[in-house]
């Protein structure tokens, strides 16, 4: 070979230039306000060597610190020292249930899973979950619940719960279980009965199972998340996932009520129209402003795009083979919440404690972003409703979960309305349930 090393080096540098065609993840997200509402701005998808990431270091709440609420409202800790609280549910007698859980151990499928594990540890999201439900009662003058019992224990990564008559349902990550409940009970010791299996391991990428019951009590709806970001674990792993199940309460039989919802982490019936509404977490790694998470009414038999497309017919370039027939039928969600806010809980407000402008609308708990710079979410927002539909931009209500240096003191998850009309917020980083009320006039 008579090639001079210098010539060789020049050819090599040209090759490297070819390889550097992708972004290295320096993309900065735009104004989230452009992505809130019925017609969010959607940029072109991008591919990265290292997707944009920004982790808020987890620091927790200092003594006496609380989140911030608007003038005329106040916030107190209802309970602290919980074990990764994710969901709050109010029983008919006013008792507050707090579901404490975290993800089951995830398998390592690719080297990336190892890195993601370290990232999540840094963000404080790998804390041990209680796998139990705590009952809170008797709020004292300081706002703290004086009675606190273990309502149910030895569960398996539970998330959604619902009471129908005397049947208390818990949606574990891998099964829907029924327990007997008597009014006023502070603890259930009776064994549960499995109503139906739910898609669980061995991957269980999105492990939470949201739950709500129909108003006539005959059906239960379960929100089942996908087993991957965009079906990179294969089609078989996604069987009956990324969907909202309708389970028959009497027999345990189920059908797919709606599909193509990547991770429907909250289900509620809108009080005025009786329609089922859901919040959903959309996909990652195609940009800081893609894809906006959303709040939407759920159509029986509706398909919402995942994984093939988003927001109707916007194709995801990473999914092959495509399904043009499904993409053509994909429904555009009703209301975008902006990208990577991670909505993990929502509740319609019908109480009289908080100011009247909140009546009829929905509070949404936004857990907050990890794959976006600057951060998004980390707050509870309010979406006004009118005639059963969203009627304006989302307003920040409970903030201060991030400090001035963008470190995370807490992260909101589930929200609920208690018997007195106060807003309850589960905070899984602060291990606290917050209670927001109007200040006494």
């Amino acid at each position, binding site marked *: 070979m008579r090639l001079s090393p210098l010539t060789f080096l020049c050819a090599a540098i040209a*090759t490297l230039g070819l390889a550097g065609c992708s972004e290295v993840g320096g993309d900065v997200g735009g104004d989230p306000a452009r992505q809130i509402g019925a017609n969010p701005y959607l940029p072109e998808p991008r591919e990265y060597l290292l997707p944009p990431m920004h982790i808020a270091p987890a620091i927790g709440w200092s003594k006496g610190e609380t989140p911030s609420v608007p003038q005329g409202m106040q916030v107190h800790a209802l309970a602290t020292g919980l074990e990764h609280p994710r969901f709050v549910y109010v029983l008919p007698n006013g008792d507050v249930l707090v579901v404490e859980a975290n993800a089951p151990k995830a398998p390592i499928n690719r080297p990336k899973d190892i890195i993601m594990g370290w990232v999540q540890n840094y963000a404080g999201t790998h804390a041990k979950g209680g796998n139990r439900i705590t009952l809170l009662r008797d709020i004292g003058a300081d706002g703290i619940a004086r009675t606190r019992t273990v309502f149910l224990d030895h569960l398996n990564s539970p998330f959604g719960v619902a009471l129908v008559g005397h049947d208390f349902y818990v949606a574990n990550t891998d099964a829907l279980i029924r327990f007997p409940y008597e009014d006023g009970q502070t603890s259930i010791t009776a064994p549960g009965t499995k109503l139906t299996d739910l898609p669980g391991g061995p991957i269980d990428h999105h492990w939470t199972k949201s739950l709500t019951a129909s108003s006539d009590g005959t059906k239960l709806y379960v929100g089942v998340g996908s087993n991957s970001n965009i079906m990179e674990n294969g089609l078989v792993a996604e069987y009956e996932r990324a969907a909202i199940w309708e389970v028959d309460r009497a027999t345990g039989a189920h059908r797919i009520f709606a599909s193509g919802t990547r991770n429907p982490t909250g289900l509620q019936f809108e009080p005025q129209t009786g329609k089922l509404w859901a919040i959903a977490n959309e996909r990652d790694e195609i940009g800081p402003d893609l894809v906006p998470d959303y709040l939407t009414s759920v159509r029986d038999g509706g398909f919402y795009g995942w994984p093939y497309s988003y927001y109707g017919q916007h194709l995801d370039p990473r999914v092959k083979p495509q399904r043009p027939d499904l993409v053509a039928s994909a429904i555009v969600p009703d209301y975008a919440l902006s990208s990577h806010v991670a909505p993990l809980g929502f509740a319609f407000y019908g109480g009289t404690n908080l100011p009247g402008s909140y009546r009829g609308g929905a509070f949404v708990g936004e857990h907050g972003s990890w794959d976006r710079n600057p951060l998004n979410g980390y707050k509870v927002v309010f979406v006004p409703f009118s005639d059963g539909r969203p009627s304006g931009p989302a307003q920040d209500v409970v903030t201060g979960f991030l400090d001035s240096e963008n470190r995370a003191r807490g992260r909101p998850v589930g929200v609920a309305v208690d018997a007195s009309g106060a807003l309850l917020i589960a905070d899984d980083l602060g291990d606290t349930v917050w209670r927001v009320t109007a200040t006494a006039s």
Partner: protein
Amino acid sequence: MQNDSLRSVAHVGGHPIHPMLVPFPIACFFGAFVTDLAYWWTDSTQWETFSVWLLSAGMVIAGFAVIAGLIDFIGNKHIRALRPAWFHVLGNAIALILSLINAFVHSRDGYTAVIPTGLILSTLVVLILMFTAWSGWSMVYRHGVGASV
């Protein structure tokens, strides 16, 4: 008895370490090229998972091979005087940088983890390795680096 002027510096009982280790990353990077082709042909993500593990394993073992090779290259001026040695070092350095980029590309989700950038990089690395393997063999079988006379 080794040819003293071209003796390997990193050796175990006269057996040079670099040529012991070097087949593993070569096999891994070639394997990743094959599994990328298999993914392109089948659209089955299992093959992409194979590729990314082969790339990762290849780079880890290549790290040790590089250390042994650099000890020889830096530690013996007679090896450094050989032209094929420079092609071998520079070519392998470029192959490893491309493989690192390729590992990041393969860590994306879905189709774009391989097509087109991942497959292009895997192909380029295999082509470069054929070239550097030729120069490596040339160092041993024509010039006698590390070989006993």
